């Protein structure tokens, strides 16, 4: 069992193990959230567990992530996030002050995101069999009528938009990771994107795909979409907004910014005719001020993401394989 950093291993686990085990129309891993009908309502339902280390990092904490991560997965279906569940797995001996700080951050993030934590659970595991605090949240949202946003809807001709600077969360986390510490004046972009999606939907309900490029970064998100829709994606590397600190941290560590995690960004596939309006709506919102068109959806090389480099060459942007590790080579 390899260390999960998003991408290929997780996808295989879902396709090869969970999907056959659960049977039925298992959406797990395919979309950010499941959209389903219950009592006449169209609901989005999603879950994520949070095992980030350290628990507190520049710009946020595991509590913020646990809200925003799940809220964003709901928003990526076009849903308006409404309710959260929250499960704590605490390691025996963890300080109550730490749990309290996490819970407070979680509560504040929920209020900021306009969602309510309505049900919860706490388990305590033996010392040495956990790591302080693990969190799981599941979220519920309401999908407006006429909205159908999912990876399968990407079609050639779609314009690919990212909502702002990439790589901030991953670099912020790495900068405080044990043994890797470095100084950098950036913070995680951790934020809830429900409002941003509402602003986009106000322009047009016909968004094809939304995805929050978290673990595995933009590279993983685009690959997942390309695979789900059977389309090719071409990214113009020069257009991808990479802040200098992120680029330089990646240079020092031998990483590719395309694979670094984000927690407050989305990537959108929109019909070409709506692209300008959607871009304008994004830029008008504080969380989308840095939005940019970064590429397009093509019929060629289905399932494959290709980056056009600044020099006019091309390279395949593969699904990242497990954890991103600092390289010397």
């Amino acid at each position, binding site marked *: *069992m*390899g*260390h999960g950093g998003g991408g*290929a291993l997780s996808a295989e686990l879902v396709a090869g193990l969970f999907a056959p085990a659960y049977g039925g129309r298992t959406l797990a891993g395919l979309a950010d959230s499941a959209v389903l009908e219950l009592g006449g309502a169209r609901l989005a339902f999603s879950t994520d567990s949070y095992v980030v280390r350290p628990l507190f990092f520049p710009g946020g904490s595991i509590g913020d992530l646990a809200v925003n991560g799940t809220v964003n997965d709901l928003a990526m279906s076009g849903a308006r996030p409404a309710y959260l569940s929250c499960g704590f797995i605490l390691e025996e001996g963890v300080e109550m002050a730490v749990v309290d700080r996490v819970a407070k951050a979680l509560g504040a993030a929920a209020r900021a995101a306009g969602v309510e934590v309505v049900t919860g659970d706490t388990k305590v595991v033996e010392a040495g069999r956990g790591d302080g605090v693990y969190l799981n949240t599941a979220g519920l949202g309401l999908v407006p009528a006429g909205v159908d946003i999912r990876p399968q809807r990407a079609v050639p001709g779609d314009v690919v938009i990212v909502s702002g600077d990439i790589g901030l969360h991953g670099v912020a986390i790495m900068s405080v990771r044990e*043994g*890797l510490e470095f100084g950098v004046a950036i913070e995680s972009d951790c934020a809830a994107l429900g409002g941003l999606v509402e602003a986009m939907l106000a322009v047009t309900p016909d968004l094809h795909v939304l995805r929050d490029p978290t673990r595995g970064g933009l590279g993983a998100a685009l690959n997942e979409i390309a695979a789900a829709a059977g389309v090719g994606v*071409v990214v113009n590397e*020069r257009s991808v907004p990479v802040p200098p600190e992120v680029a*330089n941290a990646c*240079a020092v*560590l*031998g990483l*590719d910014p395309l694979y670094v995690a984000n927690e407050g960004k989305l990537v959108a596939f929109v019909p070409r005719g709506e692209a300008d309006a959607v871009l304008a709506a994004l830029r008008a919102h504080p969380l989308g001020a840095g939005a940019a068109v970064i590429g397009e959806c*093509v019929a*060629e*090389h289905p399932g*494959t993401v*290709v980056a*056009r*480099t*600044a*020099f*006019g*060459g*091309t*390279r*395949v942007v*593969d699904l990242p*394989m*497990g954890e991103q*590790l*600092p*390289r*010397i*080579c």
Partner: protein
Amino acid sequence: MRYLEEFQNPELAGGLLADIRAAVTRPWALMEVCGGQTHSIIRHGIDQLLPEEVELIHGPGCPVCVTPLEVIDRALAIAARPGVIFCSFGDMLRVPGTDRDLFRVRGEGGDVRVVYSPLDALRIAKDNPDREVVFFGIGFETTAPPNAMAVHQARKQGVRNFSMLVSHVRVPPAVEAIMTAPECRVQAFLAAGHVCSVMGIEEYPALAERHRVPIVVTGFEPLDILEGIRRTVRQLERGEHTVDNAYPRAVRPEGNPAARAMLADVFEVTDRAWRGIGVIPDSGWRLSARYREHDAEHRFDVSGITTCEPAQCRSGEVLQGLLKPNQCEAFGTVCTPRTPLGATMVSSEGACAAYYLYRRLGAPGVSREASPVG
């Protein structure tokens, strides 16, 4: 001047490419020695910009790729021992040994830690006096001085629980071996700029003369690589074979004397097996006798390990430029980056992995827009 963005500026590539095109009249096979250069070429798509006549052969300059299977298995055996903290650069964690990799060892309970610098491993040793801390000392001449310093300080400070599993390799003997192979197709070398930053360029004139090949010391940024290629092609077209320094801002003829002195103290030259290639005389470094105490091979009994590389894997030929990866039968079928048979499929600098990415694009290719440079 930041010495970085300036040499990544696509606006300046046009002139270099134009000059290469102007100069080239017939096919040339150039080998970039260093995996870092391979990475840069792929990352920026530089090879796609070159005239058809210029072929780049990815050389053996990725230490991840060339570390012998036997050494990897030794590392795995040591890392699996209870009480050991095994420290490594991140790249090595996914390199397959005979039946597993360091990730797997970690998954099975081994304490395997990724460090950024060998000094981090030394600090871990000081912080854990009751544990054996072993650092996996791999790399070329650029990584050797930092590793040497860690061993040197361990000895000086009496950090007895720190040892190093050394598998350092040296570039010039590899160049010599490649040129000596009867099937050799390589006509020129882009020498590894950072290796030369440390070692200088004194070893190269004899090589260039003996094999009548141009050797151009080349940096890692895209413009540096284009400049290295440009100078190489110019020499080839003129029938010259001199050593040329295209990376003068970082490379002085004498290299870094302090680092070279430390290398001479801590290490001694030894024959070294290169994965896929075999033993190359004098191509490696091992700890010298006075550092025996910090030698992990000496400290841990890992002698009984014999290995056998998968017979199908032809990475040796690939590494020497004798075979294109897709000419290997296993390529893309049983051997992929997810299930690598040979080390050249593991590292993103590996020739087979690099090829795999392009291969997957399939025939129709990517539609090409107008040049981003005016």
